[in-house]
């Protein structure tokens, strides 16, 4: 790290020197006649500075991003090669172990039985026959399979332990053991292994444990790391100096330095705007890719995900479900999201719309200049603050109120409290968007209405609002998309229970709440449970995208009509 920083600083100094050299060189070439130059002298400076700094810094950045993983791959490859005898011994022991054979056979048998039962269950389902028996069988078989897999895993562990113990107690032995341990580890354990080894070798944070194998792996990393560090540092500096000399040689009176520099600038500017596309691409690809993995994990029962009525991803093994994937029927989440959104809209649309009408049609400029920022503060308050307010003030109040009215089962985390508070948060979106739309309605329409003898409110109700309706609908759609995607208020105030209900006093859950629950829970990235968060996010993304596109279209149409 240290050396990289020093090299980066040196490169910056070299770049500055490059600039000065370029400018000096240009004046010298012009031999006292600046007008003979194609560009201003400083453009030659910029040109040389770009050639000095840009390639070298790119190289350094590449090293910073990929250097350590390169070192990890090389070191672990080396260690795994040294562990080859151990790996061979381990595999030989495994294939010779009679227990292992029997267990594997048992596992295969159970797998076939599961497959058969599952097919029978599917047939029974299609024939609308009784399925309870199959489901029970399936549950038991799954339990059996887990037992057998555990036993296999234990056996492997034992054999591996015995094999590793055979390695000599020397440096080479430790290295071999480290390679062997790494080779056997699951992907996430591998990451941890590398992180620990790095922590020991380079003091990058604190290792979670210190073992001889980790020490050996760390020690093995050091030579590679220093090799790369020094060679990259040298290469970067050489590149900088080379770039400087080469670019300096290019400088002549007729050299079109400004055009070159401007070319680089416009490429950089274009690159920055492409990042927006890359972000969208990244979102779509990562969501789609992980969703595909999720659907593969639930065996392509996409219809079950979209139309299933039961959501319980946390439960590991359920007799009535396929394998151990839990139940992934997302309808309760969609319904909960819809319920909370509807409640929020019931608050936000009337209040927001009436505020907008008042502000644009009635309010004095002075009142407007005060009221508008105050409304906008509502949009600026962090949503976690709304969540806290809903959880500790609104929720208990509504609960007490409901109990007072005679509804005994009221809960603190209700759809109503989340919806109400979210509605307040959305008021400024509705009001400022509608305000814009109402202001865009031409004055001539109002004047026409007044000429017919309409009062102000009649003009608003019968002329301005109908004219502005498409725009207002667009604004409401944007607000709906905002409400659907809102997370913190519902995480804190709506609760995690996936109830399928239309009762606003009960606790419901939403798409965003479940995404948070699934991702912040215990992390095992490739489990169906975690992956389902991506499928939910894909639904959320698609939904908000559609709403947004429709809303923007509607607003655009409306604008065109009056411009």
């Amino acid at each position, binding site marked *: 790290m240290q050396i990289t920083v020093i090299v980066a600083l040196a490169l910056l100094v070299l770049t500055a020197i490059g600039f000065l050299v370029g400018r000096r060189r240009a004046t010298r070439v012009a031999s006292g006649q600046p007008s003979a130059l194609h560009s201003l002298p400083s453009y030659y400076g910029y040109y040389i500075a770009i050639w000095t700094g840009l390639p070298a810094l790119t190289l350094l950045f590449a090293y910073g991003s990929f250097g350590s993983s390169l070192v990890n791959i090389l070191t672990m490859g080396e260690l795994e090669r040294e562990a080859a005898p151990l790996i061979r011994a381990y595999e030989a022991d495994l294939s010779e172990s009679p227990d292992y054979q029997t267990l594997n056979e048992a596992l295969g048998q159970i797998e076939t039985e599961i497959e058969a039962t599952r097919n029978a269950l599917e047939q029974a389902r299609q024939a609308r026959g009784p399925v309870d028996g199959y489901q029970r069988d399936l549950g038991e078989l799954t339990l059996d399979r887990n037992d057998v897999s555990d036993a296999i895993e234990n056996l492997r562990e034992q054999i591996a332990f015995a094999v590793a113990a055979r390695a000599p107690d020397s440096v080479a032995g430790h290295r071999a053991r480290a390679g062997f341990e790494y080779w056997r580890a699951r992907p996430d354990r591998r990451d941890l292994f590398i992180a620990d080894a790095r922590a020991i070798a380079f003091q990058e944070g604190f290792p979670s444990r210190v073992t001889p194998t980790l020490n050996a792996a760390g020690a093995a990393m050091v030579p590679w790391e220093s090799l790369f560090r020094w060679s990259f540092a040298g290469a970067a500096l050489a590149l900088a100096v080379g770039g400087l000399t080469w670019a300096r040689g290019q400088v002549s009176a007729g050299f079109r330095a400004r055009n070159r520099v401007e070319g680089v600038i*416009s490429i950089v500017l274009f690159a920055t705007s492409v990042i927006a596309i890359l972000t969208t691409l990244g*979102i779509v690809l990562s969501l789609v890719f*992980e969703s595909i993995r999720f659907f593969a994990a639930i065996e392509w029962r996409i219809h079950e995900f979209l139309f299933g009525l039961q959501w319980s991803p946390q439960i590991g093994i359920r007799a009535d479900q396929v394998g151990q994937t839990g139940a992934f029927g997302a309808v309760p989440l969609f319904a909960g999201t819809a319920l909370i959104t509807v409640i929020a809209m019931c608050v936000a649309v009337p209040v927001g719309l009436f505020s907008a009408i008042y502000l644009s*049609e009635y309010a004095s400029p002075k009142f407007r200049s005060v*009221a508008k920022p105050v409304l906008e503060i509502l949009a600026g308050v962090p949503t976690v603050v709304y969540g*806290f307010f809903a959880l500790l003030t609104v929720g208990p109040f509504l609960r007490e109120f409901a109990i007072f009215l005679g509804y005994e089962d009221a809960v603190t985390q209700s759809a109503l409290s989340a919806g109400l508070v979210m509605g307040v948060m959305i008021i400024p979106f509705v009001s400022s968007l509608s305000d814009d739309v109402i202001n865009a309605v031409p004055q001539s329409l109002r004047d026409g209405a007044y000429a017919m003898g309409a009062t102000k*409110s009649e003009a608003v109700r019968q002329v301005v609002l109908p004219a502005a309706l498409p725009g207002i609908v667009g604004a409401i759609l944007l607000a709906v998309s905002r409400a659907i995607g809102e997370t913190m208020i519902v995480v804190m105030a709506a609760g995690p229970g996936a109830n399928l209900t239309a009762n606003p006093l009960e606790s419901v859950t939403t798409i965003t709440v479940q995404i*948070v629950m699934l991702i912040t829970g215990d*992390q095992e990235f490739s489990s169906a449970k975690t992956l389902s968060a991506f499928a939910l996010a894909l639904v959320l*993304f698609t939904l908000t995208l559609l709403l947004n596109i429709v809303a923007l279209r509607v607003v655009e149409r409306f604008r065109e009509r009056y411009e």
Partner: protein
Amino acid sequence: MSKATSIRDAVSARLPRRHRAERRFQAYGLAAIVMAVIFLAFLVGSIIIQSVPAFTAHRLTLPVMLTEDLVDPRGDRSEASLRRGSYNSAMQAALREQFPGIESRTELRELFGLYSAINSARLLSQVVEDPDLVGQTIEFEFPISDDADLYLKGQTVDERREAGRAPITLTVDGETVTLRGDEPVFAVFSDRLRQAMTQRAEADEAEAARLIATLDRIIDRDEREVTDAQIERAQRRAERLRLQLADASGLQLGPRDPSLLVRAGETVIAIRSISSDGQTAQGEILLPAGLGPRRVSDWVLWEIETPAATRLITDRQIVFTRTLRDRGLVRNGFNTLLFVNADSREPELAGVRGAFVGSILTMVVTMLLAVPIGVGAAIYLEEFAPKNPVTAFIEVNINNLAAVPSIVFGLLGLAVYINIFGLPRSTPLVGGMVLAIMTLPTVIISSRAALKAVPPSIREAALGVGASKTQAVFHHVLPLALPGMLTGSIIGLAQALGETAPLLMIGMVAFVADPPFFGLSGFTEPATVMPVQIFIWSTSAERAFEARTAAAILVLLTLMIVFNAVAIYLRRRYERRW
């Protein structure tokens, strides 16, 4: 003619109604705005009120004897030896000194529950810094446990105290004490309690009856079971109360009833039973101070109305706390720990500094990424981009990104930055990168607006005197648009500062006990940020975190107000209208 009059009549007849409608309509509009403003005031007001208790804290000051055999086991004053010392024992000894009669294990456990042992770490660092303290007695100040603090603030426990009406005689028999008043001195309390118990029993019976009535209507088996269980619970509660009330020998007090203490000087007795005439009571000594059989006329009847079962502080701890306060050892003061400490599992030690530093580090990353990229993209799109499908696609993309739910950006960060690029989880670096792509559309849109506001005449004049396009933009348009761009960027950053959901996705919700290092290496160490800290605290079980959450919210809001004030100042100061 008559027709015209009739129309005019009809119109003027309708006029009052129309005017009323007009006024009504206007009132609705005003009401809507007033409602929004009232809600805002209510939101801010309730948070301020909730935060008040967090700004003060009760601290205990004890003379702690740093005896050599406790804190310096090897006796050579070396740091290694001092670090092995048992500082908590020194603190425990100091606390025991205050209550000489407390010997039994349970009593001591309750006594030591008045503070958390982590406080000894500060004592340790104090001694390590100045080894000469060994062998001395120092005044050590540390926060009292959150339960005792809340009790002293009167937030968790209701109590009332009144002077004893008539002298009582105390007879001690081992652990039990019999108190006999000259008059039925306990009668007021026992009557009140009986009344309350009767009411509770009646309420439970009514509840059970109501549930039994609903039982016929319930078809679902699960729901039926739940209701059955509820009925049984209500009946059992009522039964227990009835039994307690029916006891002819007197009133037995359990943990579900209010506690009654008798305090005479330094002696405190917890009453366990009261005779039915209210004249005699039996109790257990909580705090002894040379107790023998005697007659007391100056005593206090101390009723803790919150039952022991529903509070986290025991009777004895209440007595300890109050005694320490009466001795002037517990004092209330400004809660500086809230601002100088990082997060802690103990509410009395938890502070916002860690999250504050984390927020700043994260914002630095966000700013360094979002502002240059956003401004660059805005310049390209507004000034250079040719009208072609690629540009149109970029524009559509930016508009859509502005409406993507923030949590989706978090998932992008998780899938791409962490799982593909292998960047470290929970760190300000990744958090800042996620927030940067989230803020990018805001920065681009506001920067474009700022560029659009620069009149074309500026560009034309620059081009007219021979500047290239790039020169015109960078030398003339950009300086004029910069204040507007800056304002938009700051507002975007303020938004990012309050964002929580995407950071939960990349693991910034982890518990981080040390504030991140305020420097280059801090960017790649696990950290948390203010809004996430608020979320973590708000989901904590301890009651004391409630006020601290509100206080953290105030800190965050102050930070955001500062951001926005800077933006408004810049706009006012440099805004130019053409």
